[in-house]
């Protein structure tokens, strides 16, 4: 019995010494010490994080993005669409449409939480007032446990002016599921199935659909850290809104510049209307006829979050 204990004691001492020996030899080697491996084991590689910045702005040219305004932030938006660059109303006489303003949107988006936004805005076309809710249901993760981000958007639009048969005839509704993926640090894509319902068909022509599905696709490509190219396209699946009836699919190209707090988008599009309800319902402007225009978006983010003060560990 004694011998066994002594043997164990020696063994224990030996392993202890050996452990220390390997420790020091590693340290002499320099790079991988026990301190290193301990640090590595403590610092978890947290790959299960949200992918950030798929889109800089909450809106591109025509479409909203999966990006939401963060909690206690207020995004102020001013969006313009000028007159036709070509056609008799455009050309040098109107400085390629800059003298004419087709549509102006002034609106706000507020973050009730990081994922839930409420928005409010007013358009020149149809004097359309919009109120909406945007909810980010799924975020893209760095480890691809969720390869895409999904945001739902619901908009209610009302036209307070003009002659309508009833109050409800002034209303329009839009529901949209925005699906995006940031493929590389430069390239983000999104597709959005949309449903639009206008209580009065826009334009109000016999045979026009009140309700219809639509699909939009958008691309953002970062050229520099602060500048991106944006392409935005929409297609309404409406049997009435065809080329033969004078309708075109809205298509926009833009340059997006973000400067910390501000995002500016300078774009060219055939759509005269800014609101998706309007642009999907009624885009009767065609690139081939010179009916495309300069537009811009200015977005300014205000943050109402409080500042945390630094305290040393005591």
């Amino acid at each position, binding site marked *: 019995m004694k011998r066994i204990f002594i043997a164990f004691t020696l063994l224990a001492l030996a392993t202890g010494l050996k452990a220390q020996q390997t420790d020091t030899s590693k340290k002499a080697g320099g790079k991988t010490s026990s301190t290193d491996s301990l640090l590595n084991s*403590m610092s978890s590689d947290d790959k299960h994080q949200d992918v950030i910045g798929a889109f800089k702005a909450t809106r591109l040219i025509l479409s909203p993005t999966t990006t939401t305004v963060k909690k206690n932030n207020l995004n102020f938006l001013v969006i313009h669409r000028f007159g036709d660059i070509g056609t008799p109303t455009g050309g040098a006489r109107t400085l390629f449409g800059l003298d004419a303003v087709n549509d102006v949107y002034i609106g706000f988006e507020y973050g009730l939480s990081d994922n839930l936004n409420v928005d409010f805005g007013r358009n020149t076309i149809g004097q359309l007032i919009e109120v909406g809710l945007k909810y980010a249901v799924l975020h893209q993760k760095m480890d691809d446990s969720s390869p895409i981000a999904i945001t739902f958007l619901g908009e209610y639009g009302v036209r307070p002016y003009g002659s309508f048969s009833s109050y409800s005839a002034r209303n329009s509704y839009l529901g949209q599921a925005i699906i995006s993926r940031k493929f590389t640090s430069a390239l983000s894509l999104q597709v959005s199935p949309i449903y639009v319902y206008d209580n009065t068909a826009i334009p109000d022509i016999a045979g026009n659909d009140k309700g219809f599905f639509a699909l939009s696709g958008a691309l953002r490509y970062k050229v520099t850290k602060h500048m991106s190219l944006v392409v935005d396209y929409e297609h309404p699946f409406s049997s009435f809104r065809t080329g033969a009836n004078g309708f075109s699919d809205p298509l926009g190209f833009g340059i997006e510049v973000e400067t910390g707090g501000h995002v500016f988008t300078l774009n060219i599009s055939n759509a005269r209307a800014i609101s998706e309800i309007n642009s999907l319902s009624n885009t009767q402007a065609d690139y081939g006829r010179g009916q495309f225009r300069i537009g811009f978006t200015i977005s300014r983010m205000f943050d109402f979050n409080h500042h*945390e003060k630094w305290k040393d560990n005591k």
Partner: protein
Amino acid sequence: MKHILLFLLAWTTIHQAGQDTYVCKNVKVNMYSSAPIEDIEANSTTGVSVYNSGTGELEFSIPVRSLHFPKSLMEEHFNENYIESDKFPKATFKGKIQEHVDLTKDGSYPVTVTGDFQVHGVTQTRTITGNLKISGGVVTMTSEFMVKCADHHIDIPQIVFHHIAESIRIRVSATYTALKNNNPSK
């Protein structure tokens, strides 16, 4: 009985190495830059650090995404445009304390640490001064130092409104606990 005691004594020597090792799993880091419009400040509390009092080795690892800014947009810009946290998720420091500090004596000791400081994938050998405080066996380290953005290839774009300074002040504070066992996995 005597032998059991002897055995236990031998056993504890194995774990002696562990008693030199101190760890901190909630390193506080503060980043501050004075800027013309508003000062920019971010805080993290989830960095980790290991200190070996025997060899003087001192290491830090800070997940960059854990630095939280009061303004979410600033945080996004910081991660995406400045520090590029998707490519360089961690800021690390691996160095050695130059002075020998007797951890059994309470007090506050100024220390100098020399080692590799890695941010944005660029490593710089730095000598950083700090303070080591011992009170009732609890080790706390604090330090304040400046980091030049240019040293770590962090470009400051000209057009941004949140214009940051060329040098960022970093404050670190870590309270250590002695590592109980020698098993580094937990």
